[in-house]
């Protein structure tokens, strides 16, 4: 056998050229192979042309107007402009908002550009599709522009429900259109998968960043959850269409031989300019599946015993005011619901020690409720009684407010309210109640109700019903801002679209809890959606079980629980499949859209089946 070692040095060009001699293709065969490929591509295109020409006008329009890259190329026969467009344009017009709204943004951020950089596939639609689209646009651009402008105005200045519904309808019709295109042989599975994935991804992306403007979904989940689900749906479509595989992902982000993350994977994900928003959403999609698992476990402590426990352990100093205001709301609701009263021995001991050390309990804060609950006696707080008396006598002619009512209640609980002061109170209420509006009006009305009920003025209390209902409606937010949900606010504002959203006062749980207490006493106005209130309160409990009164969010959580317990007494939550469906409508809507997209993708023929 010849030795395989070499003693030849590669000094000549010829030596290097000859190194590849055995590997070179025969020129004639190579050229023949090229021509065969060209012929095959031309035949494929001719069959595409034939399919395009044979397709119904609606699909020819769709193939022309939908994003470039969807249709696997079609040139050729002319004269495709329809005459009697009429009702056939309806699905097209409906499809436009979704495409225009999403693809314009997507196009701007490079979506169409990336579609054009295809996998070595033939470049896209020329010829007849462009001519058809151009002709259609010339004839319909005014109508389309006006329609789209109206749609945007609806969202900007009116309720966003109409906008959302139209977009949703548009997306559904677009997906159905994609499916029809595929069945007509004008789109293959991979391209349908990319189109549906883009629809889902961009809709989720926009939902994620504009969720505060969209109608709230009373599901109890954070509003971004449905956006994340759409993101997962987009990824699912890519897998279903064979566009994405696990190996591909691995190759993109992992150097197996170097055992390290591909550097660009990190920078692409985190740092590229405009795409940082995209990356943030992508991160939310990835982490959302994990994060939402914890959020699903919320709302496990909507129980009276939970409230009792924290009221009994309440530890704010008696000189504080804000925390006692909330304590008052919760403990009064417990005192009035007929259930087992909390054990205030611990509170009594602590308060006693503070009073003994010289601390004063103000009637604007802890005083009245401590007297109401019997935690302290009048003789222990002489300063409180005197301050209340002074306030009642000096403010009986002033505007009716919560401070006056607290002072009256203090005197009543201390047994110090004179008949004259009682009469002044009822007269003050009769004449001043109509003037109660604006900030803290719910609290004032609630306080007036408590006081009058305690004084046995039932008839007067009933006469407040119209005023109470009017104030409830004035503070009712409805299903306005998604992140704040449907509840009550401190200030009375009118609902409107996106432009005035920022002028709304932040919804707060104190007002909502007060509103629920009022509705429990006076009944709920028909316009108030108690189901939405219930779910908004549940959303406010996303932090889970509160453990301390110190943190504001924990106190808010307790107020939410108090309101929920009272709400359950006012209007027990309906249980049934339809109510559950309505409760989770955004999520079901997102899942329905995903299922449609997957269906359209999987029904589309593969590219090799089209050839």
């Amino acid at each position, binding site marked *: *056998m*010849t030795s*395989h*070692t*070499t*003693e*030849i*040095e*590669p*000094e000549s*060009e010829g*030596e*290097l*050229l*000859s*190194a*590849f*001699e*055995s*590997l*070179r*293709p025969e*020129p004639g065969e*190579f*050229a023949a*192979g*090229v*021509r065969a*490929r*060209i012929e095959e*591509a*031309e035949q494929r295109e001719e069959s595409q042309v034939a399919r395009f020409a044979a397709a119904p006008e609606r699909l020819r329009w769709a193939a022309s107007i939908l994003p470039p890259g969807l249709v696997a190329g079609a040139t050729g026969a002319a004269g495709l402009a329809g005459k009697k467009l009429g009702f056939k344009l309806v699905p097209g017009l409906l499809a436009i908002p979704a495409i225009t709204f999403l693809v314009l943004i997507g196009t701007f951020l490079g979506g169409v550009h990336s579609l054009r*950089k*295809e*996998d*070595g*596939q*033939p*470049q896209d639609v020329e010829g007849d599709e462009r001519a058809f689209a151009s002709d259609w646009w010339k004839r319909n651009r005014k109508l389309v522009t006006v329609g789209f402008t109206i749609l945007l105005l609806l969202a900007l200045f009116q309720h966003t429900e109409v906008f959302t519904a139209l977009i949703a309808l548009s997306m559904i019709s677009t997906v159905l259109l994609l499916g029809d295109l595929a069945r007509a042989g004008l789109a293959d599975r991979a391209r349908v998968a990319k189109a549906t994935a883009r629809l889902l991804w961009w809709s989720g992306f926009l939902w994620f960043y504009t969720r505060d403007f969209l109608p709230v979904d009373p599901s109890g989940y954070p509003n971004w959850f449905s956006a994340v689900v759409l993101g997962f749906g987009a990824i699912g479509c890519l897998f279903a269409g064979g566009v994405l*595989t696990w*190996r*591909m992902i691995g*190759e993109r982000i992992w150097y197996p031989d170097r055992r390290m993350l591909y550097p660009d994977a990190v920078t692409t994900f985190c740092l590229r300019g405009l795409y940082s928003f995209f990356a943030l959403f992508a991160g939310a999609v990835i982490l959302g599946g994990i994060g939402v698992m914890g959020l699903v476990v919320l709302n496990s402590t909507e129980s009276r015993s939970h409230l009792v426990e924290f009221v009994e352990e309440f530890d704010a100093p008696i000189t504080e005011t804000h925390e006692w205001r909330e304590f008052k709301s919760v403990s009064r609701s417990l005192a009035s619901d007929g259930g087992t009263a909390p054990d205030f021995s611990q509170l009594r001991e602590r308060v006693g020690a503070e009073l003994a050390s010289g601390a004063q309990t103000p009637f604007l804060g802890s005083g009245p409720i401590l007297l109401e609950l019997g935690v302290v006696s009048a003789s222990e707080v002489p300063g409180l009684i005197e301050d209340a008396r002074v306030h009642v006598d000096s403010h009986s002619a002033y505007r009716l407010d919560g401070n006056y009512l607290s002072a009256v209640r203090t005197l009543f609980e201390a047994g110090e309210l004179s008949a004259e002061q009682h009469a002044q109170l009822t007269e003050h209420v009769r004449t001043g109640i109509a003037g109660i509006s604006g900030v803290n009006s719910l609290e004032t009305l609630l306080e007036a109700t408590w006081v009058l009920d305690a004084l046995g003025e039932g008839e007067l209390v009933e006469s407040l019903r119209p005023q109470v209902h009017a104030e409830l409606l004035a503070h009712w937010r409805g299903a306005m801002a998604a992140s704040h949900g449907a509840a009550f606010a401190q200030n009375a504002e009118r609902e409107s679209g996106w432009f005035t959203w920022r002028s709304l006062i932040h919804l707060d749980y104190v007002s909502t809890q007060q509103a629920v207490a009022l509705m429990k006493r006076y009944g709920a106005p028909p316009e108030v959606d108690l189901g939405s209130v219930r779910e908004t309160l549940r959303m406010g409990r996303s932090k889970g079980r509160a453990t301390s009164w110190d943190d504001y969010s924990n106190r808010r959580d307790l107020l939410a629980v108090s309101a929920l317990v009272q709400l359950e007494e006012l209007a027990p939550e309906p249980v049934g499949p339809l109510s559950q469906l309505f409760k989770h409508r955004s999520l079901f809507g997102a899942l329905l859209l995903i299922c449609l997209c997957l269906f359209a993708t999987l029904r589309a023929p593969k590219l090799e089946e089209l050839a």
Partner: protein
Amino acid sequence: MSATLDLDQLIEAWRGPLIGLFAARGVAYGEAIELAQDVFAEAWIGRGRFQGAPNNTRAVGAWLSGIARNLHRASSRKRRPEPLEQGLAEQEPAPEASDHEVRAAELRRAIEALPDRERAVVQAFYFEETSSAHVAALLGIAPRAVEGLLRRARARLKESLESASVASS
């Protein structure tokens, strides 16, 4: 090349560098030939979008290089990456091969061991006889840079083969 694109001339001028370029990216030579055919077909079908002058080597090279890059990316998604050792093993001569074939295989192995840029230049330049201008256009570098890389590569090959010769003796 003529003032208008001619398919046969295009193939003749760029076949070798393209195949060599694919091979330098780790593609087996058989598949590199297939990919090169795909590049020419793709280029011909989309020749209406070529905006340069047909006799402008740099423009044509850049155009073909772009197509080649896309096809290579698409192709690499569809196939399992072939370990370098396996690719080299396919180039090993049969036991009954002549000395010439054995030497050629040794040389190819030495070329595979070159640094990336030098290997790319050598394979694109020597697969079939071509010009440094064509190689430069495909790789997006200056012809002078190609010549410099070739010089370094030849020196390195000489050194490595001399070392192999000394080690085996």
